[in-house]
Structure formats: C-alpha cells, structure tokens
C-alpha cells in the first residue's frame, strides 16, 4: 500500500496512558476518539514498577468498543512467561479481529525483580537479547498452527490435521518452549510488533523483529539517520527494509490556541525533556511539523503521547489530524480492517507451512 511515488503513507498513533485510571471508561472514550481520527493505532504503556492496570487487558476491554483502530499494549518480557505472552497477544488479535500489536519492553530494575522473586535485575543488554528471543519464539508459536489446521473432517473423525500443528522446540539462553501454542494462528498471522528503538540494545531487536520502530528524537535530521540505520540493519538480517515502519515519538502539549504558545518552541520544533522529546504548541503547527518530517522521509509517521490525555487527544484529532486530512496527507477512512492493513504490511507467510514438514 506504499504510495506510488516518493514517500509512503503517513502513519499516526497516539498513547492512551493516564495516571490513576483503573476503570474502563477512561480508556474506551479516548480510543474511540482516536478511531474517529483514523489513527493507525493506540498504545498503552505498562510496567510492573508503577501503579496501573494491565495494559493488554485494558485494550482487550477496548476491542469490542471499537471497530478499526489498532490496539498496541506494552507487554514486558523479563518476568512474564514467553508462552503466556504470545497466547495473550494472539488472543487480543482474535478478540479485536486482527487489530492487535505488542510493544516489547524489558524490566531492568531490582524493584520489579523483587515483585517476582525469581531472578535478580539484569543489564539492559542481556534483557534485550532475551526479548529478541521472545519475539522469535512468539512468532514461531503463532506459526505453530498453520492457517488451515482446523479441518473438521467427519469421515476420519479428525477435528485438526495434526501435520499442520508444530512443536517449536525453541531453546533460548534462559528458557525452553516446546509448543505448539494453545491458540490457533491469529487473524493477522503475526500481530504487529512494536519496539522503541531509541536506545542501543533495543535497536538491534527492532531491526530484526519489529514491524514498527519508535524513535524519540528532536529533529528530522537525527530521525532520518536513525531510520536509515534501522532499515540497513533490517536488510542485513535478511528483511525487506520496506517492511519496517519508523515512527517519531513525541510528547505533545497542545496548550491553548492554534499557534505555538511559546515562541521558538513549537514552530521551532520539539525539545528534549526528561519525559522524552516534547512538542509544545498549537495543533496547526504540529500538523506542519508532521507534514515536513514526513515529506523529507525522516519518518514514516508519528507516535504522539498527549501530556493531558483528554484535552490533547481531542485537539490532536479535531485539529492536527483534520488539517492533515484536509491537505490530503492522511486517510479520512480506513480502507482495511486489520492493523497490518493500516500499516501497509502484508500478512506474513507461515514459516512451517513453507517447508511443509511434519511436527
């Protein structure tokens, strides 16, 4: 679905993160708003380190209340069993009918480790290596059922064709999984994998396994450099670089009014803060920034985190997005129904079906 000339389609995503919200309504309304704006997906961050509900659970609660928008929870891989992670993500894909993603992350603190009492905190390098293995085993488990494994053959009494179910026998550095999954292959084949590729150790995992890489940078030149690096690395892993979408991550404070609230900071571009690159200004300037970075092929789109969830998401959808649509730069309706379709990514072939081997 890449545009025929020049840059690809513009992709937009928004974070639903909110403090101290434990009820469904706090998430359903904003997700529906983002869907009205035609955004590719919404994300919800997660960590065991701070209060908040389980992100994947929240987005499965949101799924039946929305129809098209992609749903991307963070699920950390350090303490959760790989088998459980892949089953939950596959299930989110089933309940949303092909709209699931998964942002991989790791738990580096001793505080998180103490909540489990199974292993000590480890350096980010080692944990990201493990996260890469978990991304790999998840893909194998999603493929462990071929798409047509369920046969319901009355004559032979067989419900499934066991030759289309596969043990994965995955041996990682810290774990082993036998397989196959308990969940049949999800509607998207592989739910969309998202990795924040800003930091070194995650970048390699993003290049190798991610469908969407997020980069937190303040300027288009830096973004373009990281994007080029990621695409090169992806190609070195044997991937087609065009199967990786790179989105710029910005925290947005859309304040009051239409134009930049602070001179030199808005129109002048985002600046680095403790929460990440912050854009402060009006929805119109943000639309210009998005259009400019995208036009110069610095990014394939943006992942935006509102500082004030309700106010800023509303301005983003009704201001920034409306303007981008008006200029013909962003979709006005969803031509497809799965997250992969929104992102212009093909449904992956099944790695076991290709060989046609028995389990």
């Amino acid at each position: 679905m890449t545009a025929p000339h020049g840059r690809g389609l513009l992709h937009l995503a928004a974070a639903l993160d909110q403090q101290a919200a434990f009820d469904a309504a706090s998430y359903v309304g904003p997700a529906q708003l983002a869907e009205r704006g035609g955004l590719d997906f919404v994300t919800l961050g997660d960590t065991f380190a701070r209060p908040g509900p389980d992100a994947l659970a929240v987005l499965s609660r949101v799924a039946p209340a929305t129809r098209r928008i992609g749903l991307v929870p963070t699920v950390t891989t350090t303490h959760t069993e790989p088998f459980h992670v892949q089953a939950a993500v596959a299930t989110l894909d089933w309940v949303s009918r092909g709209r699931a993603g998964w942002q991989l992350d790791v738990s580096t603190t001793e505080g998180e480790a103490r909540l489990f009492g199974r292993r000590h905190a480890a350096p980010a390098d080692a944990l990201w290596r493990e996260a890469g293995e978990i991304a790999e085993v998840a893909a194998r488990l999603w493929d462990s059922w071929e798409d047509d494994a369920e046969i319901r053959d009355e004559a032979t009494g067989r419900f499934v064709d066991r030759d289309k179910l596969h043990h994965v026998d995955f041996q990682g550095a810290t774990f082993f999984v036998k397989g196959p999954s308990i969940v049949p292959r999800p509607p998207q084949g592989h739910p969309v994998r998202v990795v924040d590729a800003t930091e070194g150790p995650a970048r390699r995992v993003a290049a190798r396994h991610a469908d969407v890489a997020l980069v937190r940078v303040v300027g288009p030149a830096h973004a373009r450099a990281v994007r080029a690096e990621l695409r090169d690395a992806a190609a070195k892993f044997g991937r087609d670089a065009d199967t990786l979408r790179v989105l710029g991550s910005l925290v947005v404070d859309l304040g009051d009014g239409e134009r930049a609230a602070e001179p030199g900071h808005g129109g002048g571009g985002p600046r680095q803060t403790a929460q990440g690159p912050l854009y402060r200004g009006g929805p119109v300037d943000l639309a210009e920034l998005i259009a400019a970075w995208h036009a110069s092929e610095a990014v394939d789109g943006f992942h935006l985190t509102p500082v004030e969830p309700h106010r800023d998401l509303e301005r983003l959808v009704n201001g920034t997005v409306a303007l981008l649509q008006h200029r013909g730069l962003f979709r006005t309706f969803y031509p497809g129904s799965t997250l992969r379709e929104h992102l212009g990514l093909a449904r992956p072939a099944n790695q076991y079906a290709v060989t046609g081997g028995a389990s």
Partner: protein
Amino acid sequence: MTVRTRMHLAAHFPGVNSTTVWTDPRSKSQIDFASFEHLARTAERGLFDFFFLAEGLRPREYKGRIHDLDVVGRPESITVLNALAAVTERLGLAATVDATFNEPYELARRLATLDHLSGGRAAWNVVTSSDAFTGENFRRGGFLDRADRYARAAEFVATARDLWDSWTPEGVARPFAHQGRHFDIAGEFGLPRSPQGQPVVIQAGDSDEGREFAAATADVVFTRRGTLDAGREFYADVKGRLATYGRSPEDLKIMPGVTVVLGDTAADARERAAEIRHRQVSPQNALLALERIWGVDLSSYDPDGPLPDIDPEPAPALARGRVRVADPLAVAERWRALSRAKGLSIRQTVIEASGRQSFVGTPETVAAELDEFVTAGAADGFILVPHLTPGGLDEFVDRVVPLLQERGAFRTEYTGTTLRSHLGLPEPVWKG
C-alpha cells in the same frame, strides 16, 4: 411464604474437549470472538451468575502425536473475559488459571484488572497442573506432586489476597512483603482494592487435598459430581470441613458441572441424548477411549465389534496431558461385563459406560430435577456444559429458566452488580 434458597447458574464455554458435537451443522467456531459473545449474552439474558472458561496449556498428545479427534485451540482466558466485559453488564466472568505455571504478583494484577474493568465481576478458578508435559512450555518446567501442588496453590491464593488487600480502602498503596516456602516477594501492588473487594475464588478438583483446599479458601467449588447421591455425599463432606476454618456453609457454593438435554416429551429427550452421545463417541473416539484404559494400541480392533479379551497394560499411558485411569484392570472388567450383559460393541459400550448426560427430559421435568438437587442438599447450583458452541444454552435459557423462576427456584432479576452479590457472598472484610 418462606424465602427459598435460590440456585446459582453458570455457563461453561464448551471450547476444547470431547463434549462438543462439532460435526453438528450448528456448531460454530470455538475461537472467534462472536462465539464467546453469543454464549455470554445468552447467559446474561438468562440472569446467570457467571460465564466460565476452562484452561489447558498444551494441546494433548496421544501415542506421541498431537491428539486430533477433539476440539482443540482456545484463546487465553483473561484476555477474552476482558473483551466480554465490554459486551455484558452484570454477568460474572470466571477464568481458569493454573497456579503452578504463573506467579502471584502478575496473576493477582491481571485478575484485579479484570475486576476493575468489569466493575466487580471477576473470578479465578484455581487449578493445579500435575504434569511435566505441560511444564515443557514454561521456564520453571517440571511439575509438583499433589501435596506440593496444593501447598503452592494455597500459598499462591493467600499471597494474591494479601496483594488485593494491600491498598487501604482510601486508595493508598502500602508496601507489601511475603516470604514463604514457594514465594519470596516484596514491593507495592499496582492496583487499588477492586470493586467487589477481591475477585471470587473457585476451586476444581476432587481429591482429599482439593476438598481441604476448597474448604479453607474457595468461594465456589466446581465439581464433577453429577448424580444426586454422589452430590449429597460430596456436598456434606465439603460443607462439613468449613467449620474447621471458621467458615459457615453459606460461605462456599458447590456447583457441579452438568449437561442438560431437552425434548418436547421424555422419549424425545432420550432420543436426542442418545443421538448426542452417538456423535460424541465417533468410531475413532471409541477405540481411543478403550486404548486409554488398556494402555496398548487397539487400532486393529473393529469399533463395531466386541471388546478385547486381553488384559490392560498396567504401566505406561499412551495419552499425555490428561488425568490417568487409576485402576485400568477394574475398569476393563466392568466394561467387559457391561458389554457381555447387554451384547454391546466397543462403541456402544463406551457410549453406555462413559459420560452420560446429567439431566434429560422436558423443560418441566428438568426444572423440577434441578430444583430437587438444590433442595436435597446436593448442590447450590450448576455449571452448565452445553454440547454446542455457541448456541447450546439458548434452549435452556428460553425454556427452563422461566420455569425455574415460576417455581421461585431462580432469580427473576439481578439485584446487584457484582459477582459476589449474585452468589450471595459478602464482600471480604479489608484486613488492614
């Protein structure tokens, strides 16, 4: 008029097993969300207490190969229930989740999230996996023997409850620490106390250890005791154990899993029941049921012929990932006697000997029998296991529920919003 004890009803989603008649043209997907939505909406229309999902963490194998005769493939329970919370308003949502291959902090958090997002409708059916076969999918691997399994499960539930209670009712998080034989954890829990105080805890398991565990900790017991006499024995036994733990008989609801086959006449219902059994036990399934007892390959036998003369192999089971037959020789002798007495083939014997339907009759007789079970002290209610996915409870809700209501045996409206309120369980007192 005296206030009658009302029965509780739950809907078991017949996802993965051999009870579903998947060859029926009305049998739909066991995995599409539409199926879950249909059954949950039916259960809520019928004012059921809760909707129930079983769990299995590895597809079963047979003769070293993936078992292919029964319905297989299911979604992950808690994720589906969160989605169902969006399309139901009152129905309780119960997830079976193994206490062996999970960790208390994480599972307590997932269950508390379900309780918050559903407004107080979450339940956890605590099961304890017994086989290393399942362990091959998990870091911790291996398995625990029965005594240890329940010790871990008991410590798991106690830890989860402490986590659920770790915030003050005013919403202030307090530090938490637990040090025991199975878990040594500390920190702060991620969620405030949930809308029903704590998720409801269900126990499924028949052994002495299982009963003791239920008496000590559970709010609901899911049992297989489907007959009146066996139900009464079980009911009296488990309720009798409660006093030891300072609990009263109303604190624990006993709900057998049962099947119901309806007909316009008794004969009609019997005919439908026979038809269902016939379709559940295909020729291949009949041989397999026999092999599970004999422990040897019987694939050369004719399912429409007589039972084997040879005695069962006592040692290795061909099946992996399911409960083993305790005394194969005794079962084989019983089945051979049955076959001789009635002149039954292998397939007919299996149909006759295993898993007959619990309640077969007209809506009127079934309503009366269900009511009798409850008034006779054999159950507090039932977990209905339909034969069809997902329409298998439509008829029960349309035809039996109104009769139960007429008899005063079942509620005519939800009076509360939480699962605890449906079950008549008090909200647990906050232990500060």
